[in-house]
């Protein structure tokens, strides 16, 4: 008799527990920086889940964009806006109620959707199918960006063929949009100094 440890399931459970537990901690903690820390843990655990599923590109993106970028920005926001050290946030009971309602209904919808798809539950799949899915994902994703879908080499329906033209243009549009948003946010977040005293006489600047 042997005690076999299912490493895959074990790590899945560990990561999923970490993600859910840290997400709860984000909601329940009162200190903004602790919230940021728990958010890092939660997002990092989700990245671990991606790695576990064999999606190393998506997992790395999760680390880079969400864990790295967003959290650094969040900490920046906290530091630039905090009026006193260790900001505490108290949530009113009515807000708790509304938040719980919204959260619970979203959970119900997602739960129902997740359980209704047969493929996601792993029914009717062989081990070979799963191994075929564990191929590297970076190259197909990159090719799909420029319109080459290796998973669908030929689309029989000509009406759907237009949808396979690649994601490069939407991607660029979104990037430019994000840059605009970023510049706007930087402009809004700049400290606006109200002149309390009449402005000092401007000395003519000597050319440097």
């Amino acid at each position, binding site marked *: 008799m*042997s005690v*076999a*440890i*299912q*490493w895959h399931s074990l790590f899945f459970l560990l990561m999923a527990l970490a993600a859910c537990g840290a997400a709860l901690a984000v909601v329940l903690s009162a*200190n903004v*920086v*602790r919230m940021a*820390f728990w958010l*890092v843990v939660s997002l990092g655990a989700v990245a671990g889940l991606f790695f576990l599923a064999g999606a*190393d*590109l998506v997992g*790395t*993106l999760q*680390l*880079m964009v969400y*864990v*790295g970028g967003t*959290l*650094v920005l969040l*900490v*920046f926001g906290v*530091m630039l806006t905090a009026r006193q*050290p*260790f900001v505490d946030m108290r949530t009113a009971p009515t807000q708790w109620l509304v938040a719980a309602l919204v959260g619970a209904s979203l959970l119900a919808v997602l739960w129902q959707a997740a359980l209704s798809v047969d493929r996601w539950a792993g029914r009717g799949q062989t081990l070979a199918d799963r191994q075929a899915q564990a191929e*590297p994902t*970076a*190259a197909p994703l990159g090719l799909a960006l420029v319109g080459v879908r290796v998973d669908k080499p030929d689309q029989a329906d000509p009406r759907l063929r237009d949808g396979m033209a690649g994601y490069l243009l939407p991607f660029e549009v979104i990037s430019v949009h994000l840059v605009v948003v970023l510049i706007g946010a930087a402009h809004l977040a700049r400290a606006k100094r109200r002149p309390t005293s009449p402005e000092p006489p401007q000395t003519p600047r000597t050319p440097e």
Partner: protein
Amino acid sequence: MAEYLKTFLPESYAWLAYTAAAAVHVALLFVLAMMIVAVSNWAERKIAGRLQDRLGPTRVGGRFGWLQSVADGLKLLTKEDLVPAGADRFLFRLAPYLCFCASFSVYLALPMASGWVAQPMNVAVFFVLAVAGLEVLGVILAGYASGSKWSLFGGMREAAQVVSYEVPLALCAAIPVMVAGTMDLVEIGNRQAGGFWQWQIFHDPFTFLTFFVFLTCAVASVNRAPFDLAEAESELVAGFMTEYSGFRWSVFFMAEYASMFAVSVLGAILFFGGWNGPLPVASLLGLTCENHPLAGYLGGLLGLCNLLVKGYLGIIFMMWLRWTLPRLRIDQVMTVCLKYCIPLAAAMLLGAMLWCYALPGGLWAAVENFGG
């Protein structure tokens, strides 16, 4: 390795093979990181001493002070572990370990010789850059949780600096990736086999210039002088580390040296052929897996030595820089990044792109084609 171990074990014990393989990889990488830290600690004292026209450590463990790192380690372990009264205790205690976890996780994807890598990844370069950028979180948390103004200033500076320098660093790393046509570090290294003229730094003038931008950004991203504004011992006491003492303080140092080595190795693989020596000695001696598994192993060992030497040259360069150049001001740091490094890296990317389009085989292939 797990596959190899599985051949010795019955089917139902496959989990044991995975456990053993993981344990061996982690243990090897941990020993490597700790040895890097110990040697760097000694080397930093020695190099600092020599650059300042003094001797550095001379007594502990013989003539050159070889055992200085051990003595330092013992001293740090026996120091009191203080937590300031105004600190956020939980985050304060956790921050050094976060830092070290981030810089140690980079080693997961760094190949040490052809195929000698804990986790082969086809997006290894991207993974290394993403994980190396997470070290900043530990520093920010340390700066914030200390409840001290010096620490907060250090953390803020670190955040501003690392976030800015990630952009040119990623742009510079994209250029050798584009030249090699892959993000797999093992593949990038193997493509530069066969002598120093095959290294990507000599691929075209743009990659040559890119390396120097990469070097600047790498020094900045691991917080070494002249970019050590987060620490800045002469103005901010010790920046984000002001309130730390004893073991937790030394964990920050382990993280710093570990990420210095990681970024040096990344540069060595991207630009300097990785485990391929300046002359193709291993293939001349026939040390490849095709001849004999043992010969392949010896070739791997030679490659490991090559890579360690290159990585260490990077570390020594950073130490030389630290004790030579004065620290930059924070606005100068930002100017260097935004006004010089990013435009330069972008121009290099464009130039390398055009070069790859015009001369796909690189300069040497073009010269050979022209000659023959």
